[in-house]
């Protein structure tokens, strides 16, 4: 695994994203994806294919793209998330060291919740209003009941075999 190059790419991705300009390596990493909100660019990584396929069949594909749900829509948060996700995703994709099936992490879950509200708060303001101020983040999570709106029923794919899967010492007898 050519570490230096990987590091270089990911650092470049970060820097590039923050500056909003691309370079050769950047382009190679398709990191430009993160400047776009076009779903197709998300599947420049085949890793995202299951979610993309499922999204196309979902109730929202006509009304919301990846970015609408997964990127914050206040200016700073948007670019910060793009940078962080860009870093995580590129790093993950390069080092192949992420958990599969991919499961949304708390930070992105909060972004998601905010986006549900962004489009639907007129409908759900009563639900939001009665939430408990004293415990931030304790409002009902839309995905508790609507986890399927983006991708239908849960999608995901287990990862390839990794050394940790094998009993130690691995002793095949065939």
């Amino acid at each position: 695994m050519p570490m230096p190059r990987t590091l270089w790419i990911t650092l470049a991705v970060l820097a590039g994203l923050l500056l909003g300009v691309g370079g050769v390596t950047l382009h190679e990493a398709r990191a430009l994806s993160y400047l776009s909100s076009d779903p197709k660019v998300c599947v420049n990584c085949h890793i995202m294919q299951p979610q993309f396929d499922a999204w196309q069949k979902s109730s929202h594909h006509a009304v919301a793209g990846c970015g609408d749900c997964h990127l914050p829509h206040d200016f700073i948060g948007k670019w910060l998330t793009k940078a962080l996700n860009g870093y995580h995703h590129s790093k993950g994709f390069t080092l192949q060291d992420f958990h599969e099936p991919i499961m949304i992490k708390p930070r992105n879950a909060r972004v998601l919740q905010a986006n549900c509200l962004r489009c639907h708060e007129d409908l759900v303001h009563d639900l939001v209003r009665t939430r408990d101020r004293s415990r931030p983040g304790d409002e009902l999570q839309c995905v508790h009941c609507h986890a399927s709106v983006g991708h239908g029923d849960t999608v995901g794919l287990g990862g390839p075999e990794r050394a940790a899967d094998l009993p130690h010492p691995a002793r095949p007898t065939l």
Partner: protein
Amino acid sequence: LNIRERQSEARAPFAPLAQVTEDTTDPEVWGRNWPKEYDSYKRTALETRTTYGGHGGSEALPQEKADRDPWRTRIFAGYAFSLDYRDRRGHAYMLQDQESTKRLTKPQSGSCLHCHASVMPLYRKLGNGDAKAGMDATYKMTYQETHAQLTAMGHAHPVACVDCHEPKTMQLRVTRPAFIDGIQRLANSDAPVPQLPSVQQWRDGKRDRPYDPNLDATRTEMRSYVCGQCHVEYYCSTKMPLTFPWGHGLRARDEEQYWNETKFPDGTPFYDFEHKETGAKLIKAQHPEFELWSQGVHARSGVACADCHMPYMRDGAGKISDHWVRSPLVNINRACQTCHHVEEDEIKARVATIQNRNHELLERAAAAVTDLLDAMNAAKARGATAAQLQAAFDLQRKAQWRLDYIAAENSMGFHAPQEAAMVLGEAADYARQGQLAALRADAPAAAAAAAAARVTASH
């Protein structure tokens, strides 16, 4: 998120038309502020029939359980529940159905009102502001006297908005002292609580104050706690304050252990009634929905009572909680299909499969308990002494507790199918062991001893 929030409030300012306080038990007043919730709340008077649940609305009092299952009268012989024991109805009827039960022909405690009326103002009055003290004052009072005081104060009302909502913020909150007392008993125990994360969090914390559901519980938990104020096993009589038996956990066996270790104020061992045929001292199980739910995979997955019994409904521009609390089987598209994308008929069929299995096991356990009663009567007819029948008495208590537990629970096993089947399997096993003990009761000492040994061996 805070920005979103403030915008949301800006758009829909919280501008109540009517002033509501802790003493506003009349839902009609609250209804002026929240007409949609109020309208759906009133529908709990409507008919909702399903195979094993629901009710016939205002048409008449619900069916006597014993009309379906004669054994239900026999196992309560000598106890008020053998006089009159019906199916439940909607919330709108909770007070009048209590008022009209023949069980009130026997003296009943004032604490009965804890779960059948909007009783908090009376509790605060009797306790000079301290609700718990107020509740504890009611158990010695007669039902009639307590009911009269409540009526005089103008609070003789079925469960009302104020029982689940904090008037200023409309936040969910629990009000019932017996629940707060019980959930604290659970928190102080070391029973595993994977379905109640905030209890574990409190246990892992400083513990410098008791667990307080209104401060510590997550909103998801509150969506079940408000129901757990009433849909639980309890003891309610003039002998001892109203108690929820959660000191060892929420499983049927945990509650049994708690009751077995309980003593009445006079120091005698706890029991609900003495069975008229056999003379055994038995315990009665009442509607342990909260407890059985807690043993199922839904509870573990954070699915709350309100998710299924008060699902959200689209109403014009807004989305509200359906306050027509009822069987989800008459509301499957909202209650189930948001999470389970399966046709309505298939969902019905899955529930039917679970409930029919549970019903068959229930009848099996009931047949065993009935055979046990016959065997004990036969032994007594042969002249077996109470001492000789002790093993049979103990087994009758174990078996009936388990049979009654699932029979009294109102989901016909749905809330936790495997756990319910396990409890019924134990019921049948203990009942048959009791028959054996009865057959051997008056056999020569040696045989009896051997029998006793074998019985304990197989506990």
